Every structure is written in structure tokens, then in C-alpha cells.
């Protein structure tokens, strides 16, 4: 069935391959010649060989699909899936976590909170290419957004945190961020009668290191941004995207961006080298977690070093460095048009860009 479908949809490819196969000196192998070899192969090799045969058909099919304008907006057929609603959690813990997220007592010198670098009122990050450490020095890597972080398989640019719990604990204790410790923060919170009361209500006991981290993580799990126009299109709303945006999505796939930026978070689920064909920003770290493109239009600057200040600039640089392609202005514009549809909503409002320094906007 699959062979029949492939044959009918890849006429052009076969037409070009037939004379090549008859050309002397070429090492292509026909299916009838391939079968006996597969039968005699070892079991594991046989499975892989079958997969590779399927790959040939798929590759041929993908060539045609990339050129086909017909798209069915079905999520299960696309490599990107919609952002699910935030999980059902204890609202008291979420509220406590939100309060802790904005609490400067988590830092050693009481000057910065999680919100300082992850402004959840805008894009979950900052406008800075490099946020500053407590000693005033810029941190090495650009701050990724906290929105949809729970959907990533690893956290941070280097993917050095497997869980939100580890990431929260490390952030509180890292000298480059809060330079404190969970225990120190808990000690401060225990002196606050109102905070003790809120912990009592949420966890049935006073502030505790485990509960402190759990409350923050519970809040972070609520920071998902469903409802983007692209998600609505995936869910069957064919009018959610314009023809230009849909064309941009096709280009996004045909250029190969989709190879890394796929899944529910449009990235965030694998590691990749940067600068495969040409350098892309600072060389370190060599291997980065592929960033999510959710809300990407609102999260400049871009890349691990924050070197791209605009989205078109980032798309063009990615095409050159990772795909070895000089994208035309029209191609860049089309991809950006598609990326703009990935902006979701948080608490009923669309995620927006951070326009001011979060330290200035942060509540006292």
C-alpha cells in the first residue's frame, strides 16, 4: 500500500532515477536484488535495512510533499503538536509558587528574584543579551524564557538540568544568579509570619526546602502558553492562519528547520551543534539544547549569546550557519511570518515582548 502510494506520488523522482539506474558504474540496487541480501542478513541488520528501504520511499515522498501546496491541518500528521493546557495543580501551591517566584529574599543579597530574569508579565525572559550576575558581571549565556520550560526535555542552553526542581535549586545556589541556597532562603521565609501561614495552608507545615522548590516548580508548570494561532490551526481551525503564514510553515519544513525545531515546544527536545557549516555566535558551548520557538517573536535577542537582535536576523543566520543556505529576503520574511503565529497566551492575554529592563519593572 505504502509502495503504491509512494509510486503514485513520486513520478517525477522515479522518472529521473530510471536512466541513472541503468547507467553503468552506478551502485544503485533494485528491490529484487536487495531482497535476497536482506534475508541472509543478521536479524538486527535486517530491521535496520528495512528501515532504510522505507527511508528511500520516505525521502522521495518528502521531496514531493515539500513542493505540494495541499496541507491538511491535522496535528497528528504534523511534526509539531499543540501546547497542552496547564496541568491541574493545587491552586494554593501555584499561588505560593508565584509569590516565591517574585520574592527577592531567595537571593543572598535580597536584590533579585526569579522574576528579575524571567518576567512572566511579558515574555518570561528579559530584553538583555546577557543578564547580570550579583557581582555585576554579565552571565555567559542569554536567559531563555521560562514559558513552556516544563515542556523541554532538558533545561538551560547547555541542557545541564534534567528537571525543573534541579534547575530551581541550582539557580538559587549559583553564584552567577542568586548566590544563595535553598536553606538560606527558607531561613529568611521562616521569619515571615505571613509566609509561614501560606506554607501552612499549601503544605500543612512551615517553610521547608523541599516545599519551597516544589512551590516554585508547581508555578513554573503552570507557565504554559497554549492558544497560539498555529496551535489553533493544528487543532483544525483552518482559518487561523493566512495563506502567507501557511506558506511560511511549508518553507520552514522544506528548508529543514523542522528537523530540529519540532515537537510540542517546536524544539527543546534534543541537543545540536551550532555552526555546522558556518560559525554562529560565540563558539561555546559547542553543543546546545535546541531552543523552543514557542513565543519566539517576543523573545529577542536570540541565540545562546544573544547575538541576533531581531527575528529576521536570527532566521537568516540560522539558514547560513546550520543549513548552509543564503536565504532570500522573501524566504526570511515567510519564515518569520510563520514564527509570528507561534505566540501563545498566558492567563488569557497574548505573550508580549519585554520592552523595559525587568529590574526596573519588577515590584519592590
Amino acid at each position, binding site marked *: 500500500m505504502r509502495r503504491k502510494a509512494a509510486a503514485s506520488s513520486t513520478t*517525477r*523522482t522515479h522518472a*529521473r*532515477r530510471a536512466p*541513472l*539506474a541503468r*547507467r553503468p558504474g*552506478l*551502485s*544503485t*540496487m533494485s528491490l529484487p536484488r*536487495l531482497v535476497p541480501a536482506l534475508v541472509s542478513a543478521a536479524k*538486527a*541488520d535486517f*530491521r*535496520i*535495512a528495512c*528501515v*532504510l*528501504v*522505507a*527511508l*528511500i520511499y*520516505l*525521502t*522521495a515522498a*518528502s*521531496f514531493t510533499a*515539500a*513542493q505540494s501546496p495541499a496541507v491538511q491541518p491535522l496535528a497528528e500528521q504534523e*511534526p*509539531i*503538536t499543540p501546547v497542552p493546557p496547564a496541568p491541574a495543580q493545587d491552586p494554593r501551591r501555584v499561588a505560593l509558587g508565584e509569590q516565591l517566584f517574585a520574592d527577592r529574599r531567595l537571593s543572598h543579597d535580597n536584590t533579585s528574584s526569579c522574576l528579575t530574569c524571567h518576567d512572566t508579565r511579558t515574555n518570561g525572559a528579559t530584553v538583555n543579551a546577557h543578564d547580570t550576575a550579583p557581582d555585576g558581571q554579565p552571565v555567559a549565556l542569554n536567559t531563555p524564557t521560562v514559558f513552556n520550560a516544563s515542556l523541554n*526535555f532538558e533545561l538551560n542552553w547547555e541542557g545541564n538540568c534534567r528537571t525543573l526542581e534541579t534547575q530551581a535549586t541550582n539557580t538559587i545556589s549559583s553564584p552567577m544568579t542568586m548566590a544563595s541556597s535553598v536553606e538560606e532562603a527558607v531561613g529568611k521565609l521562616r521569619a515571615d509570619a505571613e509566609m509561614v501561614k501560606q506554607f501552612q495552608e499549601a503544605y500543612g507545615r512551615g517553610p521547608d526546602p523541599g516545599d519551597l522548590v516544589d512551590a516554585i516548580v508547581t508555578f513554573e508548570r503552570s507557565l504554559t502558553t497554549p492558544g497560539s494561532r498555529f496551535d489553533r490551526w493544528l487543532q483544525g481551525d483552518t482559518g487561523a492562519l493566512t495563506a502567507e503564514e501557511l506558506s511560511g510553515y511549508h518553507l520552514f519544513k*522544506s528548508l*529543514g528547520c*523542522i*528537523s*530540529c525545531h*519540532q*515537537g*510540542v515546544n517546536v524544539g527543546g*527536545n*534534543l*541537543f*545540536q*551543534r551550532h555552526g*555546522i*557549516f558556518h560559525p554562529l555566535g560565540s563558539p561555546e558551548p559547542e*553543543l546546545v539544547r535546541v531552543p523552543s520557538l514557542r513565543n519566539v517573536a517576543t523573545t529577542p535577542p536570540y541565540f545562546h549569546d544573544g547575538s541576533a537582535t531581531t527575528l529576521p536576523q536570527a532566521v537568516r543566520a540560522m539558514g547560513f550557519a*546550520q*543549513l*548552509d*543556505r*543564503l536565504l532570500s529576503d522573501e524566504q526570511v520574511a515567510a519564515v518569520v511570518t510563520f514564527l509570528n503565529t507561534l505566540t501563545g497566551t498566558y492567563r488569557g492575554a497574548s505573550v508580549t515582548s519585554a520592552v523595559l529592563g525587568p529590574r526596573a519593572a519588577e515590584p519592590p
Partner: protein
Amino acid sequence: MRLLSFTAGVLLLLALLTWLLLRGTDTNARAYSAASQTLDDFALAEASLQRDVLQARAGLLRNYVPVDTAEEAMEDAIGRLRSYAQSENLSTESIDRLGAAVAQQEELAERFKSSVALLQNSLVYVGVLSTGPMFGSTDAQFAPAIGAMAAAVLHLARDTSPDAVQALQERIDHFAAQAPAAGPDAQAAQALLAHTRLLRDLLPATDATLRALIAAPTETPLEAARALFADHQAAVEATAQRYELLLYLASLLLVVALVRLGLRLRARALALRRRAAFEHVIAENSTRLINCPPAETAARLTQVLAELGRAMGGVERAYVVLAEKPTRVHAWCADEAPFPDGWPEDALALSEQLGDGGHDIVTVPDVAALPPGEAKNKLKAVGLRGWACVSLNRPGRVRGIMGFDKFQPAWSTVFPVPVVLLAGDAVANAIDREFLERDRARLATRLERA
């Protein structure tokens, strides 16, 4: 004190039975079932992981979230298995080996995802450039070399042997020799070469990663863990069965004890009934003797002895022997139990001999158990196996005994000494009254004569 001991015994028994019950029912079935399910979950997650990476390699899976989900499921299963092993005090060696294999699989899976993403990207690029109209792929100058190189790439995608790599390298060299270095197509030609060279290196490496991932050694530790849990469960069930057997035996002993207790209660009830009947007989005959005219005492005594003998049960003969001259005897015997010669007259002397301590009652439950001597010989001589006698002495007037002969040993404990003495008192009082009446008559005769 006795009630306290009884209560303590009952509580101890209840505690023992409860403990045995709990140990007998503690088969750990739920935990084992959960562990077995976890092993199945692990196997399913691993199969899903292998399926997903194979699909990804074939280009059929373009979303790598399922790979991450399978990895998380495997890690979660490892955690649950380790927790179960630790809770059951089992060796975690096989779980540790399984965890190490999973860590290896995850590392390989991450490497594979990164590689296959690049690979799919470059495959698409090579495909588009080699078939699309935007580059010189339709140009007669480049088309043969580009087509040959694209075919070699697809062949390498199927067969990543060194020969296929060499074949692709030859196609790359062939195209590179004629690719434009300048002009409108130069950038595309160089990009095509770059992607093809990337695929040349990436395809064999990716397949090597895939093979290592598929061949990760999880089967042996997984089976070892399964066998470890199954053996442990078998041991737990065997222990539980032993406790069930002990519980059964304890229950059986309890039933026996309850039956024995019931029998004892029944015997006591019967004894109480017989004692009440005996006391009733004593009271009735005491009344009769009181109301009996002294002249009729002798006849009434025989009747009373008969009723007492029957009421006591097992008594073949009953008699009253009074130490008069000649010896006065009132006797009753059951059918076919006549008195031997000299008996019961000799009973008076025998009672004095056995009741040397001045006891009001003498009982010989089993004649055979008596120490050798004259008394034993005498009793055996008259054919008795059990004997009892009650003193009827009234100072100054009556001296005698009331005896009971038994042909079978064992004197019933139903009739305690006070009750039997009560019967003796009734009889002694009747004889005493008779003696008084006789003395009164004698005194009256003397007075008349005077």
C-alpha cells in the same frame, strides 16, 4: 488470679492467631504485581524507544518527543524497580546494571537524535537540489554528476558499508571537480557538496549509533531482575503458606481445646444435676425419717439405704452397722449382690481401722490402690473395688457406720464429704431418736416398776 491467667491466655491466643493470620495472608501480592507491571512498563518503553528511533531513522518520525517520553518512562520504571528491591531488602545489582544500560541508551539516543536531525535536514537539502529546478540539476552539464551523487547518497542511506562510503566519495570528487566556483550557482553547488560530505560522515556514524542503541544490554539485567523478583515472591508465598499451615494447626488445637472444655462443662452440669438429685433424695428421706415413728425406723432405714444407694449410682450395697450386742445391721443390696459372710458386720472394725484419724467419712475410691495390709485384704475378700463409709456416732448412745459397697473402682466426686455427711446425719438422728425412745420407754418401765 485464675481469671487473670485465663484472660491472659485468651489474649495471648488471640494475638498468636492474629499474627499467624497476618503472616499467612501477607503474600506481598500487590507489591509484586506492581513490580511485574513495572518490568512490563520498562519493556514496553524500551520497545517504544527502539521503534521510535527506527522510525526516526527511516524519516517516519519527525517529532522526537516520543523518544524523550520513552526515556522518561524507562527511568521512572528503573526508579520504581529500585524502590521495590530496596523495600524488600533485595539486591539491586541487576537494577543497577539495568540503570547503567538505560543511561547508555539515553546517551546514544541523544546522540542519535542530534545526528538524525542533521541527517534528515541534509537529505532533504540534497533531494531538493538534485531534483528541483532552482539549481543546475536540470542542466545537462551538472545533471549527471548531481544525479549520481544523489543516488550514491540514497544508497549510503540504505547501506552504510565502507564500500558505499567510498562510492559516495567518488561521486563527491567527481562533482566537486566540475562544480562552479563562481557565478550564480556556485553557492548552491558548494552547499550541496557540504551537505553531501556531511551525510557521508553522518550516515555511517548514525547507523553505528543506532545499532549500539538497539543492542544495548538491557535484556540480561531485565531478565535477572524479573527472576530475582519471581524467586523472592515464591519465597514469600512459601513462607505465607507455612504460616497458613501453622494457623490451621493452631485452629485445630483450639477446636480440640474447645471440645474438651465443652465436655468438661457438660460433665460438671451432669454432676451438678446428680448432686442436686442426691441432695433431694437426702432431704426427702431425712424428712421421712423425722416423720417416721421410732418403731418403724428399722423398716424405713432399709428403704432410705436403697434410695441413697440408687441415687449415688454404681453402689451395689448399702448398709448401717450399729455397734450393739449383737451387732445390729440394716442393709440393702442391689439384685444379685448378696452380702458375703461376716459382711457388713466387719465393716465397723474396718472403718475404725481406716478412719484411725477420727475422720467422719472414709472413702476408698480404688481398693487396688490401697497399700497392702489387712484392710485391703478384707475389702478384696468381700469382692469390693470401691468403698465408703460415714460415721453415725452420737456420744453416749449411737456408735456405728453407714457403708456403701461398689464393685467398680472410682468414687464419684459428685458427692462431696459434707453432702454424704448430711445423709449420715439424717440416718444417725433417726437412730438416735430411736435410741432415745427406747431409753425413754425403758425409763418409763422402771418408773412404773418403782
